[in-house]
């Protein structure tokens, strides 16, 4: 049993924009590279060139499909019949969501309180949840306690590993200030990842969350995650585009006016 510190004002975390995440895995690999060679590494790989390549990753990307029900068309044809009869399917398209998953640095992390040795702990000053490998006995209680699957056990090293929010980058005075950010945030090619203090309502990340109605993952479980996800923006698939829709009802009566004639008197300037 490990005690949590008193709730801190400062809550460092990530804000991840699901509207622009294209599922490219840049954040995951940058994280792996940074941490593999750093003081929280190595992040061992098992069977790296073999049948079942597996390894420790602090950040993983999952892609999900969300599919509305497919309905038969007006003649009662199912999709394949529609396809071969008419060439297309009256089918609401699927939506794909890419979902990066890493430690959420919860305010009430059971992964910490279940730790029998104090290896798993939450930093008082910024809320980052870390594992002190020297104290870790590899009992895996913390990974059972985490409902988000954010902990990664290394068979090779016999210890639990996890996202450190790049604590060895974000304060690092040997870096230029602009580079004092987690490796995943630095790498993200669509700039879908943001880092900052979610305990400060005036911080850029807090404002972003307010503006975009960012949400916590499964808050009903009571762990009070710090990280936030920004939902996909409403898709403009044309249904609501009234201005443009109004225009295209206009049709040309080609019998009345052969199309080319319209341009005969067009006065153009070069």
């Amino acid at each position, binding site marked *: 049993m490990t005690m949590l510190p008193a709730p801190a004002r400062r809550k460092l975390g990530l804000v991840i924009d699901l*509207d622009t995440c294209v599922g490219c895995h*840049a954040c995951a690999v940058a994280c792996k590279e940074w941490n593999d060679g750093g003081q929280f590494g190595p992040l061992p790989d098992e069977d790296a*060139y*073999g049948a079942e390549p597996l390894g420790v990753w602090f950040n993983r990307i999952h892609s999900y499909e969300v599919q509305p029900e497919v309905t038969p068309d007006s003649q009662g044809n199912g999709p394949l019949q529609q396809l071969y009869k008419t060439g297309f*399917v009256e089918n609401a398209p699927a939506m794909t969501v890419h979902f990066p998953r890493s430690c959420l640095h919860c305010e009430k992390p059971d992964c910490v309180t279940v730790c029998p040795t104090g290896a798993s702990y939450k930093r008082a000053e910024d809320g980052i949840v870390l594992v002190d490998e020297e104290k870790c006995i590899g009992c895996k209680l913390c990974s059972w306690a985490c409902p988000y699957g954010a902990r990664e056990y290394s068979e090779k090293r016999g210890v639990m590993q996890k996202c450190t929010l790049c604590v060895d980058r974000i304060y690092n005075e040997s870096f230029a200030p602009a580079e004092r950010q987690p490796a995943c945030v630095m790498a993200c090619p669509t700039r879908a990842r943001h880092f900052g203090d979610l305990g400060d309502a005036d911080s850029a990340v807090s404002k972003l969350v307010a503006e975009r109605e960012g949400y916590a993952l499964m808050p009903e479980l009571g762990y009070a995650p710090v990280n936030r996800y920004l939902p996909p923006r409403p898709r403009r698939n044309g249904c609501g585009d009234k201005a443009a829709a109004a225009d295209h009802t206009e049709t040309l009566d080609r019998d009345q006016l052969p*199309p080319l004639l319209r341009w005969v008197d067009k006065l153009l300037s*070069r």
Partner: protein
Amino acid sequence: MTHANLKLHEPVGDEVKTTTCYMCACRCGIKVHLKDGKVRYIQGNPDHPVNRGVICAKGSAGIMQHYSPARLRKPLLRVGERGKGEFREIEWDEALALATQWLGDIRRRNPDELAFFTGRDQSQALTGWWAQQFGTINYAAHGGFCSVNMAAAGMYTFGGSFWEFGEPDWEHTRYLMMFGVAEDHDSNPIKLGLGKLKQRGAKLLAINPVRTGYAAIADEWLGIRPGTDGLFVGALIQELLNHDWVDFDYLVRYTNAHHLVVRDPGGADDGLIARDAAGTPLCWTRDAGAARADAVGIAPVVVGEYTLDDGRRAVPAFQLLAERFLAAEYSADAVAPQCGIDAAAIRRIAAEIADAAFRQEIRLPVAWTDVWGRQHSEMIGRPVSLHAMRGISAHSNGFHTCRLLHTLQMLLGAIDTPGGFRYQPPYPKGVPPANRPGKSRKPDGTLDAGPLGYVHAPEDLLVDAEGNPRRLDKAFSWQHPLAVHGMLQSVIANAVAGDPCRIDTLFLFMANMSWNSAMNTTGTRRMLVEKDDGGEYKIPRIIYVDAYASEMVEFADLVLPDTTYLERHDCISLLDRPISDADGASDAIRHPVVQPDRDVRPFQDVLLDLGTRLGLPGCLREDGSPRYPGGFPQYMVEHERAPSVGLLAGWRGRDGSREGTGEPNPQQLERYKEHGAFWHAEVPAAGRYYKMANRDYLDWARGLGFVGSTHAQVMELYSERLQRFRLAAQGHGAVQPPARERERVARYFDPLPFWYAPFEWSHVDLARYPIAAITQRPMFMYHAWGSQNAWLRQITARNFLYIHPQTAQALDLRDDDWVWVESPHGRIRVPVRCHNGTEPGTVWSWNAIGKKRGAWKLAPDAPESQQGFLLNHVITELLPPRAGGYRYANADPVTGQAAWFDLRVRIEKAADEPETQPHRVEVARA
């Protein structure tokens, strides 16, 4: 209870060096951190104009590529039968002496018997020059099987192209249409752009049979059927014309829409542009009749038929375009069933893009001066932009489809205007650029020009007196006249068939032609070991250069091992494939950040060493001593393509004070290393749009040596160049195609873009093969050689055939079932997965994850070879024989682009077989 030793301020490593990534074609700037002499961490360079600090999955995984166990370690000489992978390690002296002997014999006999092709083609400024020095016409890089349709259509239409020679205006566009699978070229700049675009609330429309990656974050996805994009765009054009949603002022200022086209059916001038005595195109004005089309202050007409002074009849080019696209075949109703996109949706999209272009017009308060000397107080923009890559390109109708895309852009006034598609310097430099492919050898054995270039007229083709192809790959022949990137995919089959010729040595650099870069992979592997009656291999010698133990290595007679990208010099030159962005010109270098721990040498150094040993004129001084004893770094600095023009544009002149042109600077590479390994020159603010006719831009570009003149570059709505080939096919002009090619040339050299069905559709029974099959690359594994990467293969080590759930249901398929994918060319047994974001008439897979067992130093039971597969086995490299037995390449008839995505298949559930049985290939042909 804190970490006793938590170090919050530890430096990354002992040293940091900036260089350029090579994990894909983006060429991002990277900072490589070293610790104890080893690579510790690779991050994006925040100052670099390409990636602005970000780095993709491949870039970060570069560390594992660098330390891969699959790296070759020493030159190899084949000792067993070819293809068995039996080699003996030899010293470099022996390897280079052998290569010199083989190549020297060829050069003395007939330089064209060397076929020199590079797969990764970012050293063309060197390799193309070397081929020219050697004197072979048989040289190219990989564009023929990549996206030459896209490159050629752009260059011949407006002097730029998607990806490398232009980009969407990420800052201002309000509507971006992305066509086809396009998740690779380019990676980080597109991702950065999409992030910005979505933040601004611009609409992203994906027109793509597959919804993954970029299409997944699109506002709207139209699951189009492969090969029908040209119909969709044709219907959009019809809608724009119907509603008069056209920027006519833009058309007559910057395109040839008003140029008069002679109507003289059957005549030698039919379809040519009417010109005055000085050769200047003519247009028609209501006040003054015929007038020079390049005059300003005139009001040209765009429709009507007019009589020229010499009595000939002529119509403005725009009228011909309008007549074509107002025809019923391009109506939304007509194309909808073929595209699989609802007609109402097509009309709505047309209305949306017109709304964005005209109602959301952009006016930037930036003053500029046009090439005619007129001053403008603002820049008017049509904020609709397009992007397309292989999905459009990899069809036999890709050239014209891509031209259709550019036609749409021109009608909207959306090329190089704010919010539209923007040129990247040094482009535009001619529509198309002036350089023609070399054709003949000079007395010193060198070719009269580089082997690749732009064919402008039939006279430029590489054909013999009978009109037969001269090049091994048949590029620049009547079969594929505008094959500006060559046709690497045809090289092996043609050489083995002796059609049009046999060769002696095939010299390949990083081209996996026995595997994922081959059409008909099984057949190609057989051809590589095929012997003639005398027991000699039909391709007598194969020299192969690679850094890794790829599938191609085992077919080589001599293997010259390359270094990794962190161990050598490279040059990302403006003379080659630029990394510029629309706001600035850039070039860059690589330089060794670590030394090899193996007996390997940089390919570029080896090439120059071979050139010196062979006595190639450019590799020797006048006294016969080596010109570049310092290898490629010396060449990068000292080589001059023309006086004062070298590979690198930055820090030129003896003292490094010049940009663009200037004498070689001995300290040039030092300056690059001090400046992040790149050079960047910003386009002046007044020159950032209308580059084709902007004096501020063209003066700047001429100052850097990018263009020779500051005349307007006219975009070609109507291509007179294509018409000249058609006229030749109709029996006009000095150089005409042989009789058997005439019908084909006449049909496909249409001066206006059009849609035709992909060739495969007319060759196969579509009732038996109802499903289209395509491939794409995952973002994290864009090259074949990335899929052996220890980290990347943890993301995916196998691929599936993805199929729409309803299609799967109709075929009684569930996830992980095995199916036979059958084409007329063979069948493969592969596992399936359902994927809603797939057009129901299409199946697809990730390309190049499947590996040959034993290659890339992967374990024999690695999933890449056990379950991973290639669709290549069922894709043919040749179309079926036509009357007389001749077989054309399965390629675009204009450019020679490999028609990968024309593939049609049948899917059948495979009977249960033992779990351990890997995927299986059965090829139909003998």
